[in-house]
Each structure stands twice: as C-alpha cells, then as structure tokens.
C-alpha cells in the first residue's frame, strides 16, 4: 500500500516535471523563433547591401531580385570593392575618416576628462552653474548652432588662419568643435571620477603631488574604461557625421567616407552594386570595433543617451 502511494506520487511528480519541461522547451523555442524573426527585420538591409555589392552590373536589375549574388565565389568576386576603393578613392576617404574620428576621440578624452575632473573633485566659483549650462546647451539641436558656427568659420577663422591653410575646406572644422565641447563626455567623466575614493588622492597629497600629478597618476589610470568608452563613442559619432563634411569640405582629397558616399550616389544614381560596396566599406570599420568593444559602447550609449 505504502509502496503504491510512493509509486503513484513519483509518477505524478515526474509527469508534472515532464509537462513543465515540455512547456519550458516550447516557450524556449517560441522565444528563439521570435528572436530570429526580429533578427530578419534587423539585418535584412545589411544582407541585401552585402548581396548587391557582389553582383555584376548586369544582374542588379534582374526581376525577380536574386538574393545570391552572381559573383559570389566566382573569379573577380571583389571587383566592385577594388573599383570603389581605388578608382573612386574610397581608400583615401576611409583614411580621412579615420584621421578625423581619431583626432576628435583624443580631443574628447582630453577636454572632457580635464573638465570632468574639475567638476567632480575641485571647488571653484560658478562650478554648479557652469555644469548646468554645459548640460543645458546640449539640448539645443546642431541645426541651431551650425549656421553661426559656419559663418564664424567662413568670416572670422578662415581669414585669420589663412597663412596656415585657412579653416574652410580643411579638417579643422570637423575636428575642433567636437575637440572642445562635449557635454555628455564631461558628464560621463564627472560621474566616474566622483566614484573614486578620496583616500587614494590623500595619500598622493601627503607625498607632495600637485593637482595635475594627482589627476594624471591617480585618476586617469583608474578611469581607463570610461576613457575608452568616451573615445569610442566620439569616434563613432564623428565617423558617421554627415552635416559638417557636407558644409565644409570641397576638395575630393579631403572627403570623409560619409561625404564620399553621398557624392557617389549623386554621380552614379543606378550603379547600386558599387554604391552598396561603398556602403559596406563605410560600415565595416565600425562593425569591427563594435564586435570587439561592444561592452564599452553599449554601456556608454545606454547611460548617457549619447550623441555629441
């Protein structure tokens, strides 16, 4: 009798466990199905971009459109890419974008960490007001400030800087503004510096270190993750920046990759295979950075809502 009860209980328990498990598996499959569905929506444009970039001019207008490109694994598979890179100078555009983005990244780290340190750890008149103004001005869209910025560049900076190459049609207007201001960057660095225990710097003060030495040898090394985040976000923003290159750059040899792409589109309205090879080239460097530094990028963007 006892054994019968035990057996019945055991079988009931295992039956429930099984159905629970089955439910669990079904739920899990459902979630994976949904995940894949959203993935299709997310990556379809990229897939189509890559596919088109491996097609020959003759097949891009095939009806119905073909997903598998005709040049895939054929001789001359990368013809579109070499043509865009060398004949249409995307090598140079990419290098220009690299230069501009790196410089702005360094600039952001430099100004934002200095300012962030002062806002976090120093006392001075007007500190809170200045910090508030810094954040408030970030709410003004670029469209508002860009017109005076452009005129200031064209009418003031350009004549003054004429002896050393001027301002318009140089990299300076792409680099200097984001080199100097960065509300979100300063915010990010200030938040981080505030979390560093004061005891660390007290030890340095006893050793007779100056403020700058403390900043450089105590605070900066500890803030490497934040600095990395800041650098990468600034790099990405400037890599993708379109408005300033459109306004300031005239010479082809100074084109950034985004400007190169828009110009390219105007000139070759229907050479979609080349246009999309160019797009892949514009996206790929960021994608590689993203794969390796996803943690920094995602965290930084999610906490500051960042642009600029």
């Amino acid at each position, binding site marked *: 009798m006892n054994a019968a009860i035990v057996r019945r209980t055991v079988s009931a328990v295992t039956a429930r466990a099984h159905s629970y498990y089955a439910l669990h598996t079904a739920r899990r499959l459902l979630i994976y199905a949904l995940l894949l569905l959203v993935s299709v929506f997310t990556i379809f444009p990229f897939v189509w971009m890559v596919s088109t970039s491996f097609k020959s001019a003759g097949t891009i207008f095939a009806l119905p459109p073909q997903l598998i490109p005709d040049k895939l694994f054929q001789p001359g598979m990368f013809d579109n890419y070499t043509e865009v890179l060398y004949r249409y100078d995307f090598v140079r555009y990419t290098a220009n974008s690299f230069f501009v983005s790196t410089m702005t990244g360094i600039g952001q780290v430099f*100004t934002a960490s200095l300012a962030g340190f002062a806002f976090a750890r120093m006392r001075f008149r007007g500190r809170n007001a200045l910090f508030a103004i*810094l954040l408030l001005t970030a*709410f*003004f869209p670029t469209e*508002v400030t860009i*017109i005076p910025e452009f005129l200031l560049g064209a009418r003031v900076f350009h004549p003054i800087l004429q002896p050393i190459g001027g301002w318009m049609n140089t990299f300076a207007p792409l680099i200097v503004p984001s080199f100097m201001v960065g509300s979100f960057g300063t915010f990010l660095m200030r938040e981080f510096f505030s979390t560093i225990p004061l005891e660390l710097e007290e030890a340095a003060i006893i050793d007779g270190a*100056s*403020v700058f030495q403390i900043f450089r040898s105590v605070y900066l090394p500890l803030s490497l993750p934040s600095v990395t985040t800041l650098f990468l976000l600034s790099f990405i923003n400037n890599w993708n920046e379109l408005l300033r290159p459109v306004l300031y750059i005239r010479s082809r040899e100074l084109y950034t990759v985004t400007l190169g792409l828009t110009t390219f589109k105007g000139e070759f309205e229907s050479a979609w295979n080349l246009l999309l090879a160019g797009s892949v080239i514009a996206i790929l460097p960021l994608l590689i950075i993203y794969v390796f530094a996803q943690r920094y990028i995602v965290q930084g963007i999610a906490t500051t809502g960042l642009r600029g």
Partner: protein
Amino acid sequence: MRHYHPITPYLFIGPMIGGLLLFRIGPIFASFLMSFTNWNIRTNPTWIGLANYQELLSSDVFWLVLRNTFVFVLTYVPGAMILGLLMALLVNQKLRGIAFFRGLYFMPFITSMVAVALAWNWIFSTRYGVLNGILTTFFGVQRGPAWLSDTNLTLWVLIVVSIWKSAGFQMMVFLAGLQGIPQNIIEAARIDGANRLQMFRHIVLPLLSPVTFFVLIVSIIDAFKTFEVTYTMTQGGPRGSSSTLAYFIYQNAFVYQRMGYASSIAYVLVLLIAIVTIANFWVRRYWVAQQVN
C-alpha cells in the same frame, strides 16, 4: 583636496569653456539675433525685425514641413519606444546566445545613416527594388507602390527607416532598466499569484517609468532633429512631402543661402523642443514613479 591655486580649476575647464563659448553659447545667441535679419551669405545682414517669422507663418511650405515634423514625432516616438520595449522584454531572458541577439539588434544604431539609407533606397526602389519584387512574386501585386516618389508615402518610408535604425537604442536603455528591477519584488508578486500580464502591468511598467521617461525625452528630441535620413533618402522631396524642420533649416541656410530666415526656423524648432520637453517634465509626476530611498 585644497592644495591648489584658486586659478587651477579654471585651467582644467578652460578648453571646455572656450569651446562652449565659441561653438555653443555664442552661436545660440547669434542665431537668435540672426533670426531678425535678412542675411544672404555674401551681403551684410540687415535688421528686419519680425519679418522672417511673419514670412514663415504665411508660407505654405513651412506649414507642410511643420505638419510633417509632427507626423514624424507622433509616429516615430511611440513606434520606436514600443518596439524597443518589446525587444528589450524579448532579450531580457537567460538563454544561450542571447548576448548575440542583443548585439545584433543594437547594430543598426551605430552604423552610418548614409550607408544604411543607401541600402534602404535600393530596397524601396520602385521598379527593381526587392520590396516590390517580394510584393509581386509572393502577393501578386502587379505594380508596387512608388515608395520614394509618391507624396503620400515618402514620409512614412523615412519614419520606418528611422525606427528600424534606432529601436536597438531604445531596447538597450529599456533593457538596462528591466535588469535594474529587484528580483525579489517580482518573486513576491509571483508568490501572491500574479500572472505575467498583471506583473508587467502593475510592477514592471511602474518600476520602469523613470527609464521610460528618459527614453521618451531623448526620442522626442531625436525625432525633432531628424536630418540625415531625409538628406540621404529623399532630400525632403518630392515637393516637400518628406521635409521636416531640421532639413528645412539646412535647405534654407545652405542651399538657398538665407541665413536669417533659416535661423528663424531654427528658433521655431528650439521653441517646439523646449515646450514639449517642459510639458513632459510637468506631467512627469502623474505617471513616473518617485525614487524611494
């Protein structure tokens, strides 16, 4: 820390303050003054008082652009936020490979708008685009719509592309919020017999509300500022049907060279963003949970 000269802090913030004055505060005031002038880039500005604003109010194009901007904001914001929240719920699971999907969904947000807009242009192409190809092949549509040249459709195409591009951002912020909800509250509700929907409605949503508020503010401002997608995909056309305020500013300033007029549009944009943002902070206490410490 007291061992520094009173000037030292200003040296630390010096570069930032210089940039702030030259590239932010200066221009903010300058464009306000410019909005009262007639300024073609080659001539000197002349003061014309409120004439730019009067011209705006009597311009049909301006009202069309304003209408487009509101359509954009009122569809993009809920679209991107709801999609982002659903995606966040979907990827907020302990499953193998979930990090991969999160990374994938966030990808469009960091890629260059110019590059992906080109891909979308090609997808939406009327005769040879893959979208109309699919409509013809699988749904028997004889002639697919002219997505990028039909004045009734262009704005919607831009909205869809914008939502596609940014939903990963809204997702990531919501996800961070969801993961900040203490597990014991969820557990307690489960023990009390709440079902999933009840838990979502009465526990998750209220606890998430500060995050929702942040996402709302950022998304609205982004929607008002939309420029790159318009510039690359439609240039505001055809006949202004997809033009929004930010693009209209660019066009007047740098295509028609009307710096003063463009500045007045910019200030309309600032005013709209300010009103909507302040209104949001105003109604905040009615729906955003207060932080209890």
